Each structure stands twice: as C-alpha cells, then as structure tokens.
C-alpha cells in the first residue's frame, strides 16, 4: 500500500517537472498558456493526492485554489491581456530553446545531486518530492531569465511558485500551507494587474530601459 | 695662569692667520706671475689694497638694506673664527674643542649663506647670477666635504682637528687608498670653495664667467676690504686644514716649549709656501671650465669622498 501511494506521489511530482520542460520548449504564447494550465492541473492533482494520503483536509483548499485560480482564471486573464495589448504571439528567447533545454537538464541534475546528499532517514517521499520541487523552482527561474515576454515571465514565476506549493504540500503536516498559497495567489494577481496597468507590451525590459534613458538623473 | 696662557696662544693664532692670509694670496699671485714670466705685484700688494680700500668711503646702492651693510662683518667674523679654530702651529688650542671640523665647515657655510643674500639684496641681475651659481656649487661642494670628513673621521675616530692631527702624526693611519682619495677630493673642494681656476677666476670681471666676484659686485670701500680679507682667510684656512691633516709634522703639542713652538711656526709657514706654490702651478697649468661643467668636477670630488669612505670598510673593517 505504502509503496503505491509513494509511487503515485512520485509520478505526479515527476510529471510536474516534465510539464515544466514542456513549458521551456514552447515558442507560441497560447500554447505556453495552455501548458501552464496543465502544469497547474498536475499540481492540483498532486496536492490533492497529498491531501488524501496525509488525510489533511485543508490541503484540498490548496488543491482547489491551484485548480480554479491557476489552471483557469489566470491563464484566461493572460489570454485576454495578450489579445488586448496585441502582444506578439511568438516568444522571443534570449537563449535558443535547445540550449535552454540543456540548461534545464543540468538544473534538474543539480537539484538531484543536492537533494540526494540528504540523509535517507528523512523519509524518502519528502526527499524525492523536494528534489522535484527544487527542479521545478529552478526551471521556473530559468524560464523567467531566458524569456523576454512579460507574459512568459509571469508564467515562469507562477511555475516557480507551483514548485513551492509542491514542496510545501510534500512536507508532511506543514502548517500555513493554505495561507501561503493564498498569499502567493494575491502576489500573482498583483503582477498580472500590474502588467495590465503599466501596459507592458513586450517585456519587463522596456519599462526601465526607457525610464533609465528618459527620466532618471543617472543618464550615462 | 694656564687659562691666560691658553688665551694668549689663541690670540696669537688669530693674529697669525689674520696677518698671513693676505701674504699667502700675494704669494700665490707672485708665483703665477713668475710662471707667466711677468714681474708681478710685490708680495705685500694685498695689504696695500686692503688699507687703500679701508680708507675709501663706501658707495652704497640706493636700495641696499641694513642687511647689506651688516653682512661684510658677519662674513669676515665667521671666516676669521673658522680659520683661527684650525690648529696651525700648535695643537690643542683653547677653543679648538668648541667646534670640530664639521662645525668649521658649517661656519664657512653660514658665511656663504649671507654673502649669497648680499648678492640678491641690491636687486641687480649680476648679483643674482653670482648667488645662484654660488649656491649651486656649494650644494655639491658641501656634501663632498662632508664625505671627506667622514673618511678622515672614520680613520682617526674623531672629528676634532687637534686629535685628528695627533692621530695622523702618530702614524697609526699608515698609507691608505682612502687617505689619497680624501686628499684629492679635499683639494678639488678647496679649489671650488675658494673660487680658483678652473671653477672660477678671482681676477675676472667678465660677467658670464664670474661667480664670486658677481656676488660682491656692489660692495666698495671697507665692506669690500672685509670681504676680500675674508676670502683670503678662507684660502689660508683650506691650505692649513690640508696641511694639518695630511702633513701634521711639526705642529707643537699643547705642552710645548718655546723652541717647539718656533719649529711649529716655521714649519707652518713652509707648508703654506709649498701649498701656495702648488696652487699657483696648478692654476697656470689649466684653463677655466664652463660653469655647467663644474657639477661634473665636484661630482667627481663627491664620488672620491664616498669611495674613500666605502673603501675603508674593505681595507680594514673598523
């Protein structure tokens, strides 16, 4: 029995990493948004599973938030933003997709190495989960720094945060998980609104580059 | 009693150098004239000049300051005191320990300092030439002299002229390379300090070449007399320093009878004569050099001095 629960949890977490990779792979915005929805979905599933095996009912709330807010609302909002602001449909990358994937591999390996140094007596479930969570977090960051579109960066941030939630839920009996996920949802809402308010068409870059050159006393 | 006795000798010494100084100058001139097949002025000509100058009244430039009038006395007094501190015919004079060789050189330095100021006081261009060249020469001559003092002091273990002379006459020093170098350097410095050929020509008033004369250009009458006397004293001083350090024979010890002192005086006069003759020979033999060759000339002296000091350690580690 325990073996099965472990395997399922493991599988879900692993698939989250996989989805992160799929995100890295995308070069169309809409596709990216869809993949992110999938990401959130998988997260919801794994959180739900954790709730089940730890029989911690409050985790279901987190799962629900993940499902409704991240898998449905946010992607739709972003969709609308893309339409409204007429953002290019394809994603400008700093590093090509191939190298990005390789970097991603490296990061996953790194997170494995780091985590496997954890002594095994801390229960394996947590250990594996953490390894995957770390991988997701790093991949999210990688996405933020290698994609130029504001939208894709938001997506990156959100998948990073999914990793956090995964870790938090994986940590058996951790308090405040729900609060934290709420807090983060607020944070993301802020970001999305911010993008909408500031009319950040293409990238975060534009804002401050222009500001630097036009407004600041710090002109070179 | 002893004190009076010593004072007596000190006074005698002072008078002696004062009297002999013009004579030495006259003698050198005579020698040079003879070497040039000229009759030359009589030996006592310098005395006559001095007396004549003293009798004339002073013609002072309009904007000459009080300093300008005081300086001749300072220069004369400084040089005279310095000269009378050198043991000539009798070592261990009363005041000889009141200033060692370094102090004597410094005394001459003060005299030069004021003389250079005098050159600048009236505010003429020639005075400026003289002073600036004089201090340039001095800035090389003084270190050279100090190096020589080092060499000798390290050999004799003292900077006190009397004890140095005593050491030399005792023959412990022996014959050394350092001593030779020091002697050479000392002679070169002496020539430069006394404004003799080849560094300077005391007999010229050709503005581009003169150094010492340019400084004292504005002086006249008794002031000029004092300054001339001072320079004559300086020449005597250097000759007698060389004599007392390198040919210390015949200098009477402090506890000496009349005969010894007589010998001392006689030998001293002879030394002066020899020194004067050699100087005359040297001066007639070579020509004056350009002003900006002088640094090279004195640099050689400096090198000799330094070399002498360093060679000491090699020849005998003290």
């Amino acid at each position: 029995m325990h073996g099965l629960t472990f395997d399922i949890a493991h599988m879900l977490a692993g698939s989250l990493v996989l989805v992160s990779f799929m995100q890295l792979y995308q070069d169309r915005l809409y596709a990216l948004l869809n993949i992110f929805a999938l990401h959130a979905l998988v997260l919801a599933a794994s959180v739900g599973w954790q709730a089940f095996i730890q029989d911690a009912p409050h985790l279901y709330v987190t799962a629900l938030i993940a499902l409704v807010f991240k898998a449905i609302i946010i992607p739709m909002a972003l969709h609308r933003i893309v339409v409204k602001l007429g953002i290019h449909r394809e994603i400008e990358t700093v590093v090509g997709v191939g190298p990005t994937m390789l970097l991603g591999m490296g990061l996953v390996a790194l997170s494995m190495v780091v985590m496997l140094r954890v002594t095994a007596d801390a229960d394996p479930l947590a250990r594996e989960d953490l390894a995957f969570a770390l991988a997701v977090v790093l991949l999210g960051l990688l996405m933020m720094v290698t994609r130029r579109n504001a939208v894709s960066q938001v997506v990156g941030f959100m998948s990073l945060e999914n990793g956090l939630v995964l870790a938090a839920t994986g940590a058996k009996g951790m308090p405040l998980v729900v609060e934290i996920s709420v807090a983060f949802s607020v944070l993301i809402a802020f970001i999305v609104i911010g993008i909408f308010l500031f009319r950040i068409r293409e990238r975060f870059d534009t804002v401050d580059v222009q500001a630097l050159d036009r407004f600041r006393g710090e002109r070179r | 009693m002893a004190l009076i006795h010593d004072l007596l000798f000190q006074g005698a010494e002072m008078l002696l150098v004062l009297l002999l100084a013009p004579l030495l100058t006259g003698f050198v001139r005579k020698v040079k004239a003879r070497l040039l097949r000229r009759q030359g002025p009589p030996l006592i000509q310098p005395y006559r000049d001095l007396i004549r100058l003293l009798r004339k009244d002073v013609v002072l430039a309009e904007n000459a300051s009080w300093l300008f009038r005081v300086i001749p006395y300072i220069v004369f007094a400084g040089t005279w005191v310095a000269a009378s501190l050198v043991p000539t015919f009798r070592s261990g004079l009363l005041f000889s320990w009141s200033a060692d060789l370094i102090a004597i050189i410094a005394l001459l330095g003060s005299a030069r300092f004021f003389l250079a100021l005098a050159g600048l006081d009236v505010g003429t261009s020639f005075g400026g030439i003289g002073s600036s060249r004089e201090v340039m020469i001095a800035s090389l001559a003084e270190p050279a002299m100090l190096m020589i003092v080092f060499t000798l002091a390290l050999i004799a273990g003292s900077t006190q002229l009397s004890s140095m002379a005593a050491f030399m006459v005792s023959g412990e020093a022996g014959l050394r390379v350092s001593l030779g170098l020091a002697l050479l350097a000392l002679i070169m410095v002496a020539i430069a300090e006394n404004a003799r050929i080849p560094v300077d020509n005391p007999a010229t008033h050709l503005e581009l070449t003169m150094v010492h004369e340019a400084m004292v250009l504005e002086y006249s009458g008794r002031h000029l007399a004092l300054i001339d006397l001072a320079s004559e004293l300086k020449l005597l001083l250097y000759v007698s320093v060389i004599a007392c350090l390198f040919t210390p024979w015949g200098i009477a010890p402090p506890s000496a009878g009349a005969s010894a002192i007589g010998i001392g005086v006689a030998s001293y006069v002879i030394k002066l004569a020899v020194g004067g003759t050699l100087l005359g020979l040297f001066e007639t033999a070579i020509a004056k050099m350009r002003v900006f060759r002088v640094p090279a000339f004195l640099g050689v002296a400096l090198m000799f001095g330094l070399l002498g000091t360093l060679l000491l350690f090699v020849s005998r580690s003290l």
Partner: protein
Amino acid sequence: MMVVYSLYGVAALLAMAPIAIVLGASPHRAGVATSFVYGGSLIVTLTLATIALLSLSQYSSSVSIVTLPIGLPWLGAHFRIDALAAFFLLVVNLGGAAASLFALGYGQHEHSPQRVLPFYPVYLAAMNLVVMADDAFSFLLSWEFMSLSSWALVIAHHRVNENVKAGYIYLLMAGFGTLALLLGFGLLAGSDGNYAFDAIRTSHSSAALAALVLILALIGAGSKAGVVPLHAWLPLAHPAAPSHVSALMSGVMTKVAVYGFIRIAFDLLGTPDWWWSMVVLSVGGITAVMGVLYALMQHDLKRLLAYHTVENIGIIFIGLGLSLAFKAHGMPVAAALALTAGLFHVFNHSIFKSLLFFGAGAVLNATGERDMEHLGGLIHRMPQTAFAFLVGCVAISALPPLNGFVSEWLTFQAILLSPQLPSWGLKFLVPAVGGLLALSAALAAACFVKAFGVSFLGRPRTPAAAKARETDSNSLAAMFFLAALCLVAGILPGIFLDALAPVGKALVGMSMPHQAGLQWLTIVPVAESRSSYNGLLVFIFVVLSGSIAAFAIHRLASDKLRRAPAWDCGYPDPSPATQYTASSFAQPIRRVYGTSVFRACEIGEMPPPGATAPARLTVQMHDLIWDILYKPIAVGIGYATEKLNVLQFLTIRRYLTLVFTALVLLLLVLAIWP
C-alpha cells in the same frame, strides 16, 4: 596627577568650540569670538606646556596614568604621560601657544572666521589627546579626529576650488594612514582585542610580526608625517589652511605623527630585525633629499615651506632609523645619541617651521601674495618680520650658531658611529645616507637663500609688494619669541639634551652623557676626544670678532658712506623685472638635479632676427612620484567605476539573471562540498 590636569586643559579647549560657534554666528561679534578663542587657547596651551615641562623634569619620580570610563566599553580610555609623551606635549603646546599668539593678530583679518574658530581649539585638543592616549582605540580616535578637524581648517576657504581639492586628497590620505595604523594595532592586539598599551607592551610579539607592524606604522604615521612617497597631500593641504593653522600642521601635527611612529616602533614593539631599520633609514634619506629638491622648484612661499617640512621629516626619520639600527644591535649609547638627535630636531623644526609660516602669513597679509615672483624688497617695508624670517631661514638651513645645526650635527655624530655596527648592509648604507643628509642640508641653504632673497631682498616686483606694511604687534611678538627660542636652543643645546635624557632612558635603556656639568657649556655626544661643539662660545666668538672689527674700522679707518645708483657693471636697469626671479635663481640647480629627478626640460623660443616678438623660455617639469604612484590609482578607480556603472542600467530580467546565477553557483558549491 599631571595627566588629569592636562585632560582638564583639553576639556577646556573642547569647550571653546561650541562657544565659538555661538559667538561666531553673528558677524558683528566675530572680533570678540576671534580674540576669545585665540586668547583662550593661548592661555590653555601655555598651561599645558608648563605641565608638560614639569612632568618632563620630574619624570623619573612617576609616570602619571588615568583611565576614564569612556571610549571602548570594557576597556575605558587610558591616558598616560611618560617622558616621551611629556616631551611631545611640550612641542605641541609650545607650537600651539605661539600659533594662538600669532593668530590674536593674524586672525583678525580672517574673512570667514566662523569656519576657522570652532575647529581651531578642537584641533589643538585632538593633538594633545593623541600624545596622551594610552590604548589603541583612544589613540586612533584622537588621531583621526585630529585629521578631521584639520581637514575642516584646510577647507575653511572653500570657495577656492584648489583648497577643497587639497582637503579631499588630504582626507583620503589621512584615512589611508589611519587604516594602516588600525591594521597594525589589530596585529598587536590580537583577535581577543587587548587594546591597552600596557597589555601590548607585555605581550612580546615575534620578530616577523614586529617587522610587519613596523612597516604598517611607517606607512600609517609616515603618510601623516609626509614621508616620500606618501607626502603628496602635504604640500597641497598645508598651504591651503590659514597661516597659523599651516604652522600648526607643518610644525606640530607632523611631529605628532612622528610621535606615533616612535610610540609604536620603540615602545610597543619588540625590537625587529636590524634590516628593517635599513628601510626606515633609506626612506628617511630619500625623503630628505626629495623634499628639498621639490622645495627648490617652488615659487609659492607657503608650498616651499611645506616641502621643507617633508625634508626635515626625512632628517628626523634618519635619526630614528639609526637609533633602531643601534638598538637592534644592542648599542644603547649610540641608539640614545641617534634618538636624541632625532627628537631634538623634532623640537627645533617645530620652532623654526612655525616661525617661517608666521612670516609667510604676515607677508600674505601685507601683500595678499604667496607667489614669490610677485614679492621683493619687503625688508624695507617690514623690517622686523624680515629679521625674524631671516633667523628662521638660518636655523632651518642648519647653519651655526642656531638650533637647526645642532640637531643635524648630532645626527652626523651618530652616523659617524656606524662603523661599529656589525652588519655590512648598514655599514654601507649609513655613510650613503650621511651623504644624502649633507646634500639636503646644502640644498636647504640654497633654497632659503632663494626664499629670503627673492621675497624680502631686491626691489619690489609688484605694487602690492611695494605698498606692504609691517604686521601687527601680536604676530611680531609670536615670531620674535620663536626666533629667540631658535637662538637659545642653538647656543645652549646642553640643557635641551639633558631634558631629553629620560626619554632615551625609557625607550632605548640608555641616555646621552650628562651635558650640564661640562665647562663652557660644551656638548659632547660621546667623548671629548671624538667630537664636541660649543654653540655659545662660537656665537660669542663671532659676535666679538665682528664687532671688534667694525669698531676698529670705524674708529681707525673711514666710516663715511654715500648713496648712489647700483653699479651692476655699468648696466643701468630701471625695471625691477630684470632682477633674478625665484625660478631663474633655481635654474642652475634645476639643471644639475632636476633633469633627472623631475624630467625638467627648458624650451627656448628665439624669434628670428629682426622680429619684434619676445623670446620665451618655458620650463616643463613632471612630478614623477605623482605620475607613477597616484595617477594610476585614480585612473584605475575611474575605470572600475566606469565598468561597474553598467550594473545601474540593466533590465529587470538581467537582474533576475544575476540572482539566478548566484543561486545556481551556491547550489553547485553545496553539490561539490565534501
């Protein structure tokens, strides 16, 4: 007990600052504030000087110590007056008193007193505190505080851009020096931080450590004292301040720096290996010669004086280096002689350098000129100032019978003892250093012939110089007081040497033979057969023979005197412009030394025959030390800032990349961590 009284004095000085601020706030009460501050500091410094003198005289009985509950907690502020401190307190407060007296007159002409008055007493207090401090913290605190207050005084005339720049460089160098000293004390105190000097004295440091600390002390104290090549700030900052402050900085603060070096090198440190003394010696020699050569090339009177401070610091350090060498070889007598020579020169230099700066200040006041090329003939307009200045010139040129000569003579005597040193390096180095010393002395004489001759003698070169007026009585009083001290210290050195005996005993365990007993007040460094000097006798001797000659001539020969136009080989030259200027006076020496040291080159433009254009002679000189040492640093920092400045203008994504990279790097570190 003494130290408590001194601390009261310091407190009084500190208390003056706020009062000065209040008084100086309203312009019409500036005069009151000025006389209050300077009068007050005059009184206090005189008191402190007497205290110092007393404690120096009765030193052998007791060292007075006090600990205040301030400063570092768990340590407190230790203050202590021993022989060394007492001597330097004397120097500081003597200079301070003279400066205050001078400023009583001079300060009245200050046009922005509210920028000078509050800082002046604080500055004096800080210098006193440095000398009294007996633990690392109080020492460095007072040390840096001294720099800070003097910085405020340097930029008192802040509307002149050069002054602010000078202050900037000064502050940087001061910070540099302080940090060097801080590192040194860090080594001495160890990681558990026993900063009290007593603790440091008792804990014996290894030779290597001692050497390192010695070098740090040389850098730290040397940069404040103006040791070449750390002197760059000095000729900029000292002239920038008001003249009485310049006098304090040059005459007194550099001595406080020397004190710092002595305190560390002789008192706190175990004796380092002999060859470190070679560093000090060669630095001293180079400093002496470089300083005077720089000075010869100047025609700004105050800057010339500042460069001479560098020279004299070099001479002092030669003495100290010799003393270290002798000490390292266990020759206490010789060490005592060298140390005494150095300390006596400290005293002398503080006297005549203050005197000279006062003179320069008086001239600046009377003519508004610091550039010698615009002066001349002042001896007619301000004879008393001229006389005092002349005394200073003779003294600093190391000419008998004044005091400068005595201390240099003693240094020479110490040098003559060098053959007894066992180590060959020193055997060869010391005579060479002696040569440098002699060279610097001769050049100094040349330089002051120029300084005095060009600015006081000759004919006025500008209307300002022609209309100069004699300065006020207070300033004159200060100058003549110092001039008298120069003479006294010159003809009665024995007294001063005996006063210095306890210092030598305390630091090198020995002191020079007692001088007072000798007949005719002669001084004998080692033995009468070796060498002896009697300034008094020489002085009397010269004066007597001079006056006898004058009397005799005026009585027997003529005493008539006619005024006539200058003869000058028959060239009539109406214009004062034909006089020798400072730069033309220095030209032969510049040709001899400058070509190599400053890359000096003269470019003469002759107009073609018949052309009416004037011929020009331009002299180009490079300050090699500045070019080699300081410029690259400035350029390097400029370059680094240029490059790093890019980081202000990145995009958010790039900043995130920085964070990301940092994270990955740290994780990698974890991954490969054993």
